[in-house]
């Protein structure tokens, strides 16, 4: 007899095509892989845009859920989770009226029926300024979803969904797996947001099992959050095996182009890229450098490039859409990711998929799994510039590295990652067996 498929209630914050970072891409890949390996996934996001592939995925938008406050069962659950001081925005609320009375809560996002018995919450989605309030609302709706849905295990992606997942766990009594794609230390360096940090830690503590995208992230959880390492499994990300779109080079056709693509923030090491560019240009004055993306170090990098007198070879195209990103990869001769701290780093894989050789920092999670990439310390500007020069000058080496890289990336399938995750589910649900993945 076929075993009953495992049912997962998964909480995420974004899902393609409406995404703003790597999180949505990773969720898409993982869910696809899980479906292919026979796992039944219900994926919850704050809001659906109508452009998602709903035929392939079972997606639930929190903004579409009618939260029934008159239901005794629901109120009992609210009582049950009252003690959870996840965030001051959330608890204790027992009725839509109370939501209306709380001024810190944006009541405009609440659609209440005339009897005050049910309400729908609207979500901006994304990462706006009402983020913490959205996180709280999401948690309230999660209780309703956990009550309505039939599932075996809860899986939550990053801190934004942790309050929701904890609520869902309280309501359902089901096991919780949390998935750490990035920690607050990766996003903010040492200037951590205490509320975010607390939510991350509470999520990890409430979880029955934790999945990290790299050993690097696992170490951060152990050292910075005091989480027991035996509770943490590492599952590296993969790439969706769709055929790479390679656009012919249209700009600077006969020039060598070196690319940085990502948020221009301290964690991504953009400043090392600028310094390396200067050193490369000293011996290859006709090379061009592209720093695509936005971020709080954008102006520093722009002014630094100007001080170094390399602006005419150093370009800032801004934030690129999907089409432009592929366009840029199409013209790129070397892709560089000099991250100071990178839990995983999926863009080098995307670059490799389009046949671009990559240089990545040893401080990135992806360096744990990649063989056909050049790995340097992010701070070693000489290593960075020497390897860029080497790849630009030695086309045959560059071609071989890129070719091997493309093959390697094609073997990094979400299917394999999903099998590991499925194994983690099974072991988490079944207490009699110890987990070791």
């Amino acid at each position, binding site marked *: 007899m076929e075993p009953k498929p495992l049912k997962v209630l998964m909480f995420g914050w974004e899902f393609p095509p409406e995404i703003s970072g790597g999180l949505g891409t990773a969720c898409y890949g993982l869910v696809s892989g899980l479906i292919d390996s026979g796992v039944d996934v219900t994926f919850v996001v704050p809001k659906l845009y109508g452009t998602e592939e709903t035929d392939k995925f079972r997606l639930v938008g929190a903004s579409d859920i009618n939260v029934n406050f008159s239901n005794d069962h629901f109120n009992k659950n609210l009582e049950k989770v009252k003690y959870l001081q996840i965030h001051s925005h959330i608890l204790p609320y027992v009725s839509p009226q109370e939501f209306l009375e709380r001024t810190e809560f944006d009541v405009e996002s609440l659609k209440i029926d005339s009897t005050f018995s049910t309400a729908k919450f609207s979500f901006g989605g994304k990462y706006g300024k009402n983020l913490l309030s959205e996180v709280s609302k999401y948690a309230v709706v999660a209780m309703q979803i956990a009550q309505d849905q039939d599932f075996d295990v809860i899986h939550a992606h990053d801190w934004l969904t942790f309050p929701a997942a904890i609520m869902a766990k309280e309501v359902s009594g089901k096991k919780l797996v949390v998935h750490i794609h990035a920690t607050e230390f990766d996003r903010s360096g040492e200037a951590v947001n205490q509320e975010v940090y607390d939510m991350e830690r509470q999520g990890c503590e409430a979880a029955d099992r934790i999945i990290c995208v790299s050993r690097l992230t696992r170490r951060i959880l152990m050292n910075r959050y005091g989480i027991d390492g035996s509770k943490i499994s590492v599952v590296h990300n993969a790439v969706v095996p769709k055929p790479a779109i390679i656009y012919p080079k249209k*700009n600077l056709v006969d020039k060598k182009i070196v690319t940085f693509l990502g948020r221009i923030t301290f964690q991504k090491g953009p400043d090392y890229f600028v310094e390396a560019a200067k050193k490369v240009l000293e011996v290859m004055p006709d090379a061009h450098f592209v720093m695509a993306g936005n971020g709080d170090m954008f102006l520093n990098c*722009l002014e630094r490039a100007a001080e170094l007198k390399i602006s005419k070879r150093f370009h*800032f195209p801004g934030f690129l859409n999907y089409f432009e990103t592929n366009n840029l990869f199409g013209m790129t001769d070397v892709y560089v990711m000099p991250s100071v701290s990178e839990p995983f780093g999926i863009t080098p894989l995307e670059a490799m998929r389009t046949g671009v050789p990559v240089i990545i920092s040893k401080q990135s999670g992806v360096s744990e799994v990649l063989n056909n990439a050049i790995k340097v310390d992010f701070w070693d500007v000489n290593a960075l510039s*020497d390897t860029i020069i080497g790849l630009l000058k030695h086309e045959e*080496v560059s071609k071989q590295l890129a070719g091997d890289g493309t093959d390697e990336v094609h073997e990094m399938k979400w299917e394999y990652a999903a099998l590991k995750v499925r194994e983690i589910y099974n072991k988490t649900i079944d207490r009699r067996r110890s987990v070791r993945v």
Partner: protein
Amino acid sequence: MKKLCFYFQVHQPFRLKDYRFFDISCDDDYFDKKLNHEIMRKVADKCYLPMNQLLLEQIQAHNGNFKVSFSISGICIEQFELYAQDVLDSFKRLADTGCVEFIAETYGHSLSALKSPEEFKAQVAKQTAKVKEHFGQTPTTFRNTELIYNNQIGSLVHEMGYKTMITEGADHVMDWRSPNFIYSHCQHPDLKLLLKNYKLSDDIAFRFSERSWESWPLHAETFGQWVNSTAWNQEIINLFMDYETFGEHQWAESGIFDFMRELPNQIINHSQFDFVTPSEAAAQLNPVSDIDIHNTISWADAERDLTAWLGNPIQDDAFDSLYELEGLMKKVDDEKIKDDWVKLQTSDHFYYMCTKFWSDGDVHKYFSHYESPYAAFINYMNVLTDFEERVKKASGYTPEEIKINQGIIENFKKYLPYSVDLN
């Protein structure tokens, strides 16, 4: 009689269009035709046409006793040709009165005087030819872009045969001296300098419609009295300003046109002043002293120096990157490239990149169509990247091969996932 000299700067840049990184090598059309057309029409209707008409009427009404002077950048005249033939015609009518002097400057309203004497001279020749073509005069007075001046620029202008030049009466070079005299270049006594009286000029150009100003509203009669009350021995008052002051910076509603309609009468009939053009002033008055201007001055911002255009890293890198192409430009024969070369030198492009965000920042913002100086810089550099490639191609440039140090390659090999043999 004492002299009152009006000089107006008339200029519009060819503004760049939104030129993205992905446009490089795909688009050699850099300028925003729609925006430039719109702005030219707007300024023509609000300022150039009504003000030219007003000046014409005043010249006629005062039987040749009212006189003014203009410097019009070559690229501004080009935009008249393209978008405002009516404005060009009205300037011609002014030229025909014989009471209007047209002044020489660089064709592209450029900063070339600071970088390349050769380019500077070529642009001046081009502008004066354009003036002659349309207004039938060969300019004999020189005015550098935005009154930018130093001894060296003065020498250059002198070398080109000009005997009269106008610049700013900046406090930090004037010290105790008054701008209300004629001065001469410190090495060339025959180059006479007319210095702007910035106090009285700015009363019209900047403060006229400022309601918080104690003299608001300013009437021509009051202004005439101010002019008349200058010290007994002073000889000339130079009122130099942007022509767009009239109707554009100071709106018609502010009463600026009424003011200017009455001012000639107040000066001619109620003061000890005569109107003169700059070359007349230079012919009639002798210098009281020479003046040594070592550090570059201009009429911009509170600093009256170059910092509106140059000095921050992005301005300097853009400016230097542009002029690095000068050598190659000499080998280029392509007319469109030569034309773009001049238009990319326009000082406004560098003005948009100014990051001085204190009180003067407001003025910069008013004159910029970019959301930030950095956006202006990125756009300009994208264009310049494309332009450089065109220049290199057209000039037959071949890059010189730089030998790579073997140490670099040895280091590179260490980082490869497998060993390779590279020579």
